[in-house]
């Protein structure tokens, strides 16, 4: 390929991503060190000409604020906890599904896979909204349980942490199933036969052969669920109610309700630092998939 052609093919997506993906983070970092002001834009400049001299105002106040108010620490912790537990649940639900699909014959396999993916092609918001009608106090579950007479008081399900778990597992399940399936379907059946031939019972074959060999899929799936869940806004907002504290919601409120851009930026930076390790983990897996 000619040098010029090759360079321009690299340059176009490269520059786009540089400008609209990387540079924004630098700006967020910059503004997280600024002070809020009632103006347009609502933050101070870091670099200013004061008394004919260049001064840099690095304001660590936003970060100090995040440390002093324990709301933020609690929000980060509970986000990570909720995301982690929801990821474990999604793995427990998703793995058997992926396994079952991988074991079907190839025609059925594609149809089943499409059925798993289909819901994620319909609106995320609408799927979460569907659970509101099911879980609320006069919703489908409570109404039917009461009309049958099993309970006489509605069980509070909406606006609980339970509903958030349910929402995350429901919305992100396909993202767990897909990478695990891709991994399992490549597994050479003769390995399982060899294991059986050498006297290993099926459950032990699963634990010693299948599970370790699908590790990459499990990691990828878990990262695809865990990382976005930590910063999830829609699910805690619609299903979690006031009690569920998640950092995505806090950021949203800081930005839209308090209009404090510098604090919102600081919240984002800390979240990003928190997610750096899992994102790197995911990137390593994904770039192997992309290039291999």
């Amino acid at each position, binding site marked *: 390929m000619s040098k010029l052609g090759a360079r321009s093919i690299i340059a176009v997506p490269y520059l786009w991503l540089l400008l609209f993906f990387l540079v924004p983070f630098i700006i967020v970092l910059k503004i997280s060190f600024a002070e809020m002001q009632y103006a347009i834009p609502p933050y101070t400049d870091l670099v200013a000409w004061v008394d004919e001299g260049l001064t840099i105002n690095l304001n660590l106040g936003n970060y100090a604020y995040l440390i002093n108010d324990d709301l933020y620490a609690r929000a980060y912790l509970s986000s990570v906890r909720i995301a982690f537990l929801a990821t474990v649940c999604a793995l427990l639900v998703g793995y058997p599904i992926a396994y079952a699909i991988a074991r079907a014959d190839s025609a059925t396999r594609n149809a089943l896979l499409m059925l798993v993916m289909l819901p994620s092609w319909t609106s995320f918001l609408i799927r979460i909204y569907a659970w509101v009608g099911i879980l609320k106090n006069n919703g489908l579950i409570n*109404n039917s349980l009461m009309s049958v007479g099993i309970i006489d008081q509605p069980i509070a399900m909406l606006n609980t942490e339970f509903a958030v778990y349910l929402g995350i597992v429901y919305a992100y399940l396909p993202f767990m199933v897909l990478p695990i399936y891709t991994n399992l379907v490549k597994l050479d059946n003769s390995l399982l036969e060899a294991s059986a031939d050498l006297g290993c019972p099926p459950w032990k074959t699963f634990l010693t052969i299948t599970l370790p060999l699908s590790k990459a899929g499990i990691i990828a799936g878990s990262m695809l669920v865990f990382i976005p869940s930590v910063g999830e806004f829609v699910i805690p907002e619609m299903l979690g109610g006031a009690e569920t504290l998640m950092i995505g919601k806090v950021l949203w409120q800081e930005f839209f309700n308090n209009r404090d851009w510098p604090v919102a930026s600081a919240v984002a930076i800390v979240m990003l630092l928190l997610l750096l390790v899992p994102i790197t983990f995911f990137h390593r897996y994904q770039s192997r998939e992309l290039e291999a």
Partner: protein
Amino acid sequence: MQTGKLSTWSKTFLSVGFFFLYAPILILVIFSFNKSELVTVWAGFSFKWYGELFRDPQMLGAAWISLKIALLAASTSVVLGTMASIVMVRMGTFKGKTAFSSMITAPLVMPEVITGLSLLLLFVAMGQSLGWPGERGILTIWIAHVTFCTAFVAVVVSSRLQELDESIEEAAQDLGAPPWKVFFLVTLPIIAPALMSGWLLAFTLSLDDLVIASFVSGPGSTTLPMQVFSSVRMGISPQINALATLVILAATIAVFIAWWIAQRSLKQTTHISK
């Protein structure tokens, strides 16, 4: 893996899984035909919420804006995403490739609030220092959507490109076609189905996005998810059920078409790539 009849265990897992995935959607669809205002009590069959939906100018306006953005964003990100996957799969190593591949994969998992906030701050900073973009609206949403959709398209197209035997492209060069011609005469027709599914994926992702659009939109550019979100915040409304049903219907049809195309091309090319 072993291919064969599904075991009872597998069948149980699949049935429970699919029940979990589809029951809420089904309930949503059923109650969209409910006469009553109460979303959980069946009061008879009616199309009245569909009528109301189509008389709601705000909903229709938002839907139109969303469609425009999704069409533009999907088409742009297919071009960028295809270029990106060629860079990833076929270009070998070059300076800055690690940075490039990180920027391709990170948007796949980046929490939307972070992406939304950072893009907004970029647009504000650019508006201040460059005077562009003057105000936020369809243009800024388009840029934001292209940025994260490109990553998804790149994943879909890359996996197809990897399966494509590189010697097919070399053969075309060997027979006298320069690289750009090889791409349009040979590579593109073979990976076209992947481009199609990449486009559809980008289209639905764009159509579906609430969080990022909320950050980077401006006055007069309320998208459909934003409109839906503000109306469900007020409480449950059967009109939303009607909308949901239409979205699900459209998505199902689109996915089936895409699946059918993919199956057909799979049958055509499996022999060759193996």
